[in-house]
């Protein structure tokens, strides 16, 4: 006769570190003194005051994505090393932790998502807000029709100098920031316009209607993506901005950094 917890023992046996996703304070208090493994908290904010903490900027609905992000974060922060065995405890169905998983840190699968948020010029919160706007746009579209959009976030001064206006700038002399409540509606209306949105490091919407003119040589993006994605890839190669593109044809949100595709998200999954 075995008790159910004993069946799961080998899942967490011999792990080097335990990633705990969004734990409650009481759970963390129980977990922090666990023997033989480091405890790393992965959560939107460090509410439990953990020493080793990885910020989760997006509410990944897919647990696999969330765990991959957590691992990349822990790897980038130097909390875990390549080849470490990891245990993960995360909430899956409810708000409390209700699943455990085991995985291995594999540096070759490093995609740079964490790097996109943590080491970009723009503030992580701004990138997250832009992602949220893009996901929202992707979900709802404009009057039911799918729409495309391109946001260039960070390094706005340089981006402005590598682009030209297609028409008057509707954000001239305005002080709108992404994350302001009114922005979703405004961007939805303006995304009908052609061209890119330029957003500064602190989240101020500098301009809409920009035609990007970066040098596109050497930009390596997957074949089959259109001009919008090519422009996004190219501008991030020329500047230290992050490009976030919503595709009109397949409805996916893609992020580019240093001329490379870093992250691909399906808005329907959020």
């Amino acid at each position, binding site marked *: 006769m075995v008790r159910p917890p004993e069946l799961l023992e080998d899942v967490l046996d011999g792990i080097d570190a335990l990633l705990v996703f969004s734990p409650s304070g009481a759970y963390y208090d129980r977990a922090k003194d666990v023997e033989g493994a480091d405890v790393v908290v992965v959560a939107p904010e460090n509410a439990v005051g953990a020493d080793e903490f990885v910020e989760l900027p997006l509410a990944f609905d897919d647990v696999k994505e969330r765990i991959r992000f957590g691992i990349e974060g822990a790897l980038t922060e130097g909390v875990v090393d390549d080849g470490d065995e990891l245990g993960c405890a995360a909430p899956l169905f409810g708000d409390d932790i209700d699943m455990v998983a085991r995985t291995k840190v594999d540096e070759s699968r490093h995609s740079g998502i964490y790097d996109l948020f943590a080491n970009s010029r723009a503030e992580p919160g701004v990138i997250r807000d832009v992602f949220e706007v893009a996901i929202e746009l992707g979900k709802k579209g404009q009057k039911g029709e799918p729409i495309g959009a391109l946001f260039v976030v960070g*390094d706005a001064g*340089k981006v402005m100098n590598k682009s030209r206006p297609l028409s008057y700038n509707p954000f001239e002399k305005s002080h709108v920031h992404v994350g302001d409540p009114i922005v979703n509606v405004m961007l939805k209306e303006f995304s009908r316009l052609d061209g890119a949105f330029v957003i*500064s490091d602190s989240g*101020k919407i500098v301009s809409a209607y920009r035609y990007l003119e970066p040098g596109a040589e050497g930009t390596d993006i997957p074949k089959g993506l259109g001009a919008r994605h090519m422009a996004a890839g190219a501008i991030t190669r020329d500047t230290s901005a992050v490009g976030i593109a919503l595709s009109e044809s397949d409805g996916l949100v893609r992020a580019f950094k240093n001329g490379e595709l870093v992250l691909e998200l399906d808005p329907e999954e959020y």
Partner: protein
Amino acid sequence: MPVDYTQVADADFRYLFAAVVFFTGIVFGYLVGRVNERLLRAMDVDDAVEGTTIDQMARDVGSSTVSLVARLTSWIIYAFSALVALEVAQLTVQDAVWYPIVGFFPSLVVAVVVLFAGVLLGDKAELLVGERLRSVKVPELTLIPLVVKYSVLYVAVLIALSQVGVAVDALLILLLAYVAALILFTAVGTRHLLTSAAAGVYLLLRQPYGIGDRVAIGDHEGIVQEVDVFVTHVEENGREYVVPNHLVFRRGVVVVRE
């Protein structure tokens, strides 16, 4: 001033009357206490004082701040009605003793209430400031919430003492010196921040230059990356200059157009 009750009735009636006064007082006090508790809860005072030391102390003895305050008002009325009843029954031996005390009673109550409110307010201010500063991880900053708390307490004690008629002139002068020093140091310390903010408001309203423009402010020439209330970020060749906005006004700004 003593009132002569002998004309009203004889001794038996006086005792009866005193008993009626006393019990009315008890009932009245109890009711006022209950209404007070309801009122305080309706005004969400119990939420507002949660986590302060007084509230924790009240919880330790199995009560709460709100019911303690309500109990206190009840007891004040009980005591008062007992005094009146004694007076009515003419049981006081030396009535002269009571009057100064009874006359002193209201200001004592006010003093206690002020002290109580001061302690609550101080605790609350300490919590608020502490929460604000929590994200800033500088250990020395834990001093600031304490300073705020004791400043509030000091003022409360001052008001309470002046209520009960203690000479507080020296303490008042100390308070004035403290406030004057605070204002002086803030003004001197944040002079540049204030002038920068004033200039920043102009820059944000009029936007003589915007993000992407090439400008020269003083010795720094580059592309504007960010303008906020206090500073302008100017970048050139991988160097980002953070220029305080008051410099924009003092040194002037050159907008470079190619």
